């Protein structure tokens, strides 16, 4: 089975998942990102790498934050950005997903940034473009269902590398709703590819998917045991609709057992960093004292996120 995101000679055609990306490709993206990271501090926050290119943000599922960071990244690369809120347009008129894609490709799009509620939707689009001689139009997965959120995974790696330099000796804990998290899946693939010492997943059994161990993860249901001696803690957002029901009895009980408090964080290494993909639920998965504390790197993640998205777009655009 051929992964549609790589060309036969190993070049990146689309960014759909971190799974199967060569380590050298991940490193190349992170290195490129570091060349963009200080751009925001300059008087003129732009480079002309994508001048004349059109980036279409296709958000089939709502998102303000991710869409905005992609928009900023495109603009800093001097690309033209077109935002499409697809729910409100063509598909509700009965047009199929692939018809929409063909129409937009005919408007000379160079890149599609796709968010979709269904796992695998960006694959359908990328495969279609590859099979219809439109592979010059690149697809970036900006989050598909529970499957992947590769730019978030990459910006998490950038953040870890920034604070820890080397991945080889690290123990990383991912905490919370692993079951429904595309961020967790992308982080796990990235961390195992980059060769960290150990990846841990911590959560109640209702939120740990079956077969997770086969992704190279050690499972913990006890937060205190799972946090012992870790270098990095990645907290996941708990969606409102999952806070009470058949998966969890209440947000309060979740916080009591899996919320990141200063006392629990003290079990990690003294220089451990705390990450969160946002938006945070203070008092549900993370205590404010930790979220605003000296070990939190949650805001730097956002800043790095723009540089990483610029790096991905710039590499896909052939720079």
């Amino acid at each position: 089975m051929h992964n549609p995101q790589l060309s036969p000679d190993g070049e990146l055609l689309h960014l759909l998942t971190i799974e199967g990306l060569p380590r050298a490709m991940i490193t190349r993206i992170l290195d490129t990102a570091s060349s963009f990271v200080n751009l925001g501090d300059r008087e003129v926050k732009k480079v002309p790498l994508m001048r004349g290119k059109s980036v279409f943000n296709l958000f089939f599922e709502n998102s303000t934050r991710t869409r905005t960071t992609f928009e900023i990244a495109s603009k800093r690369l001097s690309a033209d950005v077109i935002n499409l809120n697809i729910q409100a347009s063509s598909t509700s008129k009965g047009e199929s997903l692939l018809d929409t894609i063909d129409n937009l490709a005919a408007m000379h799009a160079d890149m599609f940034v796709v968010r979709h509620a269904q796992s695998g939707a960006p694959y359908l689009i990328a495969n279609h473009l590859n099979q219809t001689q439109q592979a010059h139009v690149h697809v970036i997965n900006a989050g598909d269902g529970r499957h992947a959120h590769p730019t978030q995974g990459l910006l998490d790696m950038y953040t870890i590398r920034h604070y820890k330099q080397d991945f080889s000796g690290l123990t990383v804990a991912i905490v919370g709703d692993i079951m429904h998290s595309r961020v967790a899946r992308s982080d796990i693939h990235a961390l195992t590819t980059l060769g960290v010492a150990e990846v841990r997943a911590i959560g109640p059994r209702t939120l740990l998917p079956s077969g997770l161990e086969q992704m190279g993860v050690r499972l913990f249901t006890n937060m205190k045991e799972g946090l012992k001696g870790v270098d990095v803690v990645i907290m996941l957002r708990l969606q409102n609709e999952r806070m009470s029901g058949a998966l969890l009895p209440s947000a309060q009980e979740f916080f009591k057992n899996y919320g990141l408090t200063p006392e629990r964080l003290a079990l990690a290494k003294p220089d451990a960093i705390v990450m969160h993909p946002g938006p945070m639920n203070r008092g549900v998965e993370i205590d404010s004292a930790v979220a605003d504390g000296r070990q939190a790197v949650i805001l730097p993640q956002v800043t790095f996120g723009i540089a990483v998205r610029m790096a991905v777009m710039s590499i896909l655009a052939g720079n």
Partner: protein
Amino acid sequence: MNLHIQNGRLVDPASQTDSQQDLFISAGKIVAIGAPPPVFHVDQVIDASGLVVAPGLVDLAARLREPGYEYKATLDSELQAAIQGGVTSLVCPPDTDPVLDEPGLVEMLTQRARNLKQAHVYPLGALTVGLKGEALTEMAQLAEAGCIGFSQADLPIRETTVLLRALQYARTFDFTVWLRPQDPCLGRGGIAHSGAVASRLGLSGVPVMSETIALHTLFELIRSTGTRVHICRISSANGLELVRAAKREGLPVSCDVGAHHVHLTEVDIGFFDANARLDPPLRAQRDRDAIRQALLDGTIDAICSDHAPVDDDEKLLPFGEASPGATGLELLLSLALKWAMECVDDPRQVVLQAVDKVTARSAAILGLPIGKLEVGADADLCLFDPAAYWRVEPGALASQGKHTPFLGYELPGRVQLTVIGGHVVFRR
């Protein structure tokens, strides 16, 4: 019309025959095997050199999509697909629109099928009105209209009370109830086997427990009612253990498997290939291995095509939105042969075993005098070249459904000629 089929390799699992013999047909019936009958005027000679002459295939699950889903497929297109696949008799589930829950609808369908003079169509009636799992259908009248059994298609009954009553009522008339074992709640909305692949791809899962819990319930009900039940499209190793034990216990059950599940696993989903979106979902390697073994030891009686044509509009979608199902009528023989070639140790038994699972065994479940070559039987035949390989591609399929996870495969066994009621209805 008198036919003489000469030089063929006659394979008839019902009589354990596998030898070169001629076949003589008159007035739609087989009149002699080996030597011609005393007085026999030949109208047509068919040279079957190099071909296997087998009974026409009997498929236990083929959706023809009529009435209601003619945009996906029609009786015309799918019965054409059937004869191109050597299928001369097929069972169609009641999940049409409207559902086959009224005698008039069943009569209309069988009448239309008869007029086309192609494969024999044996409909399953709905077990409950609208397949809603609430009220029983008029089973006795549906049987008079031509239903050979009763089924819920892919919609499990939520209320165990209703299932019990349905089994009791069916038992009153000695009808067979066809059920696919699935818990009505556990795994509902799931689109892939609960396991490593679904977790990695972020697809919601259907656990094996969904099948085993349903089987436990069903067997307990059968112990009480004594109803004959045909278990459709078993998918898991654990489920097969339960079926094996039930058969050993002497419960009146039979069992089939969809041809896809004999060969493929969850891994074949690859990068979200919607062609591998099937119900029940493709399961793990150990499940597939258990299915192959269960066909050898008889726990699974027959292989069905589980034919479910789906059009582009409903398949070229993200995996979770794509309609489940794949085209199968034209692949059934090849997939049965592929199984036998890979799993039957004795090379002399390969063709006989493959044909058995798609003719004699499935006919026995139906209790109809079809699927065998004997003097006096209807002349429904399938002539195929067991050594020929063909490539599965949309252009090679007559079915209106072009989607199958076997696209691009080279499969063994090509049907060359199909005979129904003594008439050659298809010649490649």
